[in-house]
């Protein structure tokens, strides 16, 4: 097992390196210039000398291989460089947003899991009955309604009925839990609902499959109680695809909630990605894309480990 973990960690290095090369080239292929955006867009008159001086300061006049080498050398020192737009270290820019994005992802995952597993189980157990139909409607609606749209509805509802708007600025959970939850509970509910819809359907179909297995029939024949059959025999085996869905969705939530973050004015990773791309902030885009890629790789790895924990038959020897 330890050998497996080590080899998976080592495999992350070439994967991330390939991502780094790809991202480095892709962002430079896209037309646009951070210096023009920054100095010219204000509408003021700036001389060509000023524009060139700024390009030189940012290192944009160096050959591409030189820029890539600078970035890679920085990475070896665990230095992601500085944002070309703000001048702040990239690690600091990301770190500032990571707490919010992680917390939102965790909250949405908890909400989704809390809804999906009981509802999916109920639907599977009462297959074809009214409970199943109600759960199906609930989950199909969740799939059909984009989370940002649900977020807008939440805001309009709160604003129109209670003249209330969730706080516009982020307060850490460790500083003021009440203010923190007042801001994040609404986007977590909006995202968690959509997320739960996917997981509910997955739980239902996986459980239905397991419930048809011989060993479950045997358990029924032995006269075991339904709760024991479900908890001890069926649900645990049905969890493998559900865990995969939850794991990948979690990785997506770290940087993928671009529109939801806009709707709730959340200072998260998704918004930072959009800003970095629209500002052609190469160093920041590179750092962020590496983070997202690393997030996905890590989640895949964790999901693999969870497989072994759920099902002792799975071995990584």
């Amino acid at each position: 097992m330890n050998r497996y973990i080590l080899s998976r960690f080592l495999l992350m290095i070439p994967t991330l390196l390939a991502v780094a090369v790809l991202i480095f080239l892709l962002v430079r292929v896209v037309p646009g210039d951070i210096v023009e955006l920054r100095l010219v867009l204000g509408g003021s008159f700036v001389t060509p000398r000023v524009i060139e001086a700024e390009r030189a300061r940012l290192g944009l006049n160096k050959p591409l291989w030189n820029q890539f080498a600078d970035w890679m050398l920085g990475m070896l020192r665990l230095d992601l460089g500085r944002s070309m737009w703000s001048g702040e270290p990239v690690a600091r820019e990301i770190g500032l947003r990571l707490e919010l994005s992680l917390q939102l992802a965790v909250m949405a995952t908890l909400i989704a899991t809390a809804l999906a597993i009981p509802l999916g189980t109920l639907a599977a157990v009462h297959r074809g009955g009214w409970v199943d139909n109600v759960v199906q409607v609930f989950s199909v609606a969740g799939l059909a309604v984009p989370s940002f749209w649900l977020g807008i509805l939440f805001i309009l509802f709160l604003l129109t009925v209670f003249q209330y708007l969730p706080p516009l600025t982020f307060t850490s959970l460790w500083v003021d839990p009440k203010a923190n939850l007042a801001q994040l509970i609404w986007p977590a509910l909006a995202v968690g609902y959509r997320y739960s819809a996917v997981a509910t359907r997955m739980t239902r179909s996986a459980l239905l499959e397991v419930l048809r297995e011989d060993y479950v029939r045997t358990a029924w024949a032995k006269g075991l109680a339904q709760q024991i059959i479900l908890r001890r025999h069926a649900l645990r085996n049905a969890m493998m695809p559900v865990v995969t869905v939850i794991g990948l969705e979690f990785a997506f939530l770290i940087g993928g909630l671009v529109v939801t973050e806009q709707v709730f004015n959340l200072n998260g990773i998704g918004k930072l990605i959009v800003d970095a791309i629209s500002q052609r902030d190469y160093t920041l885009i590179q750092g962020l894309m590496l983070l997202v890629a690393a997030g996905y790789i890590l989640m895949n790895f964790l999901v693999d480990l969870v497989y072994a924990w759920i099902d002792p038959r799975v071995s990584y020897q």
Partner: protein
Amino acid sequence: MHSIRSATGVLLVLLLVLVGSVPGTAQQPRAGGTLNYIVTAEPPSFDGHRETTFALLHPIKPHYNLLVKFDTRNFPKVVPDLAESWTVSKDGMTWTFKIRQGVKFHDGSTLTSRDIKATFDRLAFPPEGVISVRQAVYQGVKSIEAPDPQTVVFRLKWAVPSFLEKLASPFNWVYKAEILARDQRWYERNVMGTGPFKFVEYVRGSRWVGRKNEDYFERGKPYLDGYNALFVRSRSVMMAALRSGQALIEFRGVSPAERDELRGALGDRIQVQEAPWSCNLIISFNTKKKPFDDVRVRRALTLALDRWAGSRALSQIAFVGPVGGIMRPGSEFATPDADLVKLAGYGRDIQQARAEARRLLREAGVPENFTFVLHNRDVSMPYEHVGIFALDQWRQIGLTVQHVQAETAKYLADLRAGTYDAAVDFACDYVDDPDIQLAKFVSSDVSPVNYGGYIDRQLDLMYFQQSRTADKATRLQVVRRFEKRLLHDQVYAVYVLWWQRIIPHSRRLQGYKTTTNHYVEPDLAEYWLSE
């Protein structure tokens, strides 16, 4: 007894008259409270000398003072800020400023003329490695001297017109000489000014916080205890914040639809101020590309635009409105309507203008249904509205126009590379001064923001002449000639409509008056909260 009663009555009447004669108590500035306002973008750095965006001014300017400033209640009047008074020599070549005594930086040190000199030296003569985007504006400055701690002298190479207005640029924050001597780039990431508010914190992507400077040199000001500039990118969140009262104002502007929505939701709890805006949308032509290299084609395109009808219609749905030439309508240098209608495309008879446009296109060999692309930013307000308006107008002279909206970075890259036919372009600045507003239109080898690609030395010469003409009447004549050449004779660019600022704000916010641009605001030392 009767006389005592009479005297008391008279006194009461006098008292009532006195109370009545005092401006309403609601108008009396009230100390206290924190102002929350929206800023729809974030500052790239903290250094006013190197940036051009309102996103820097709105949250950070309250920490600083200027040498002289625009009076936001009587814009564009220039009034003292750190300068107590000033004199100008008869030839207009020497400006002497007396600096206020007892002004303190937020670290407790005293401001002297040395700080003013260091600030303007950095703006006019930036040392190696320092960017001053306004360096070109001060090319007429020969030297800056500080003969004693309370005096600063600007010596000019020529009598620079509107010199005082140029000094009053809201970006010209006065920095501390000692810090600049140590590190010219310190102000890019730090704050140290003399302004009415001290810096508290900046959380990127979230908020900028300031608190009252108790040692501010203007006694009794600021009235507010502090402010929170909330960074909100989304228009819908901005509207929700204004509706809920989490923010009381946004200092750039809203669309007519947003104004109406706020009025509908908040009724008399909201006040709306409107003013013409020193920003406009232009259509630039790629004069290096056929058929836009032909002045007849460009003239046909300007003739086809019914600006007067467009103004009436578009002002209902977008923050555009006034019809004008190269200087903002209503400003000192604006062209009166009687002269404006003589320029191509400004006439009142649109049918006649379009007939002439069709004739010019035929003469230039442009076929019926000729197709070209209008490049535009993917920004709805007001770019999209004006783009759609233009292509509808051109359709009416038999042209087919594709409206291609691109992300701003790509849009700018296309304009820079010259890979476009026509493009919706813009100009915006803090003052209605020809030096600043017209620099964009000099030849493309001089101006980096002239995307038309033309070289016109006559235009360059006129720009040069007006920028060295101190006499206002003579300068105005040169500006008119510049306008005629740009918009009528050569039609390198087309002014569509000028912008109209619409600022809704909570009635709780007092002391605020809308100006003609969003750069000189906010003037937080003057504002107070009514409750």
